[in-house]
């Protein structure tokens, strides 16, 4: 392996989170972006061709080393590491809406989900999957939410452009967008 590939490997091993290419480039000020890209290719090949228990993965705008899925069960059985718990359905629904509609306020999410989402937003924020990205216009200047790089990592996405596209879904989003603008002003009368 070239010295640069070794350096990148050491840096990736020293981090639990993905490292962006810009950050990798700062490791060796002499190295050109092309050289960094070549070294990453070299590392990937080393892991894939030579046969390793780990592999180079891309997520959240950066690179990280992850174990190969075929060893997960054995590692968990030996109690050497534990898989993180799954997100609840309520969290996933909220996250899906934020991912596609960001920046988006709480009321809008509640309008789509039909339930209040205060505590779900709080827990997603605490887990670092969403962040407050600004304030909206209008009454009370509501907080707006967006997804974080940890969100991308959680779903092994390189960037938001890799989200399942609307036209891949059974019901096209465009269709709905055009019908959306009507705010739900006609709140039903309380039934007496």
């Amino acid at each position, binding site marked *: 392996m070239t010295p640069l590939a070794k350096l990148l490997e050491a840096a990736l*091993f*020293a*981090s*639990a989170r993905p490292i962006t290419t810009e950050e990798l480039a700062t490791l060796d000020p002499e190295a050109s972006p092309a050289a960094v890209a070549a070294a990453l290719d070299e590392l990937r090949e080393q892991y894939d061709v030579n046969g390793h228990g780990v592999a180079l*993965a891309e*997520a959240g705008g950066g690179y*990280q*080393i*992850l*174990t*190969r*899925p075929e060893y*997960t069960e054995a*590692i968990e059985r030996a109690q050497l*590491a534990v*898989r*993180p718990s*799954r*997100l*609840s*359905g*309520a969290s*996933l*629904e909220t*996250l*899906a*809406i934020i991912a*596609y509609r960001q920046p988006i306020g709480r009321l809008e999410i509640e309008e*789509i*989900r*039909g*339930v*209040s989402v205060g*505590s779900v937003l709080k827990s997603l924020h605490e887990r670092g999957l969403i962040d407050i*990205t*600004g304030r909206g*216009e*209008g*009454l*009370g*200047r509501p907080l707006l939410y967006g997804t974080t790089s940890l969100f991308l*990592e*959680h*779903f*092994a*996405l390189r960037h938001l452009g890799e989200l399942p596209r609307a036209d891949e*879904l*059974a*019901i096209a*989003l465009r*269709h*709905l967008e055009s*019908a*959306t603008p*009507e705010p*739900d002003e006609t709140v*039903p*009368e*309380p*039934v007496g």
Partner: protein
Amino acid sequence: MAVALAAERGPSSFDVELPAFSGPLDLLLSLIRDEKVDIYDIPVAHIAQQFLARIRDLPLDEAADYLEMAARLVRIKAQMLLPRNEADDAWEDPRAELVRRLLEYQQVREVVDRFEQMADARRNRFARAWLPEGAPPPQAPLALSLVELMAAVDRVLRAAREPALHEVVPRALDVPGAIEIVRAVLLLRARIRWRDVVQQGAEPWQVLSVLLALLEMAKLGELRLAQPRPFADVEIARDAAGEAA
């Protein structure tokens, strides 16, 4: 959350079943599927009855979201019963809004299914767990621009001055505001770049406002614009004539 609570309460008929739904729309979709009805032609009276039956035993604190939907269904049912003129072209199906929401929600569920697959694939791979000990990593340096600070002042003044009214009209361009910001920054620095006056993640109206402001100021001779090569960052230079301050 609701799942755990209700499950603990034991196997009284609906309690155990209901929390499997993540909300009233989920329950409604499931009813539509179970009853094999057309989502575009929902028999509201029947579905509303089913819906009410399913939520009857929900404890009040959990039922609020469901009750709102129940009220909506009852209202739609009533509207459907109103006599209407056959020739009335303007008649709008009272179910239209509900159908729209159901379709939208169905799409969310579909995305959730995909998300679950993606998350499971990622969960099956471990990241590095042992990390070298040492001093805590230094705090990342702070990116802070004068433009951001000025924009913040603007927001403070705007938010505090304006009575809290709901704005429905989309945000109009704010060229005078943008001119003031560019002017303030140029007062301090003779040469700035596009990035210095447009915040990261700026909304289209903000970008447009700055663009129009720059063109206007260039026309007035307050600044010069240059782009060294295609797609390069636009350079903004204070014009000697405008350097009065």
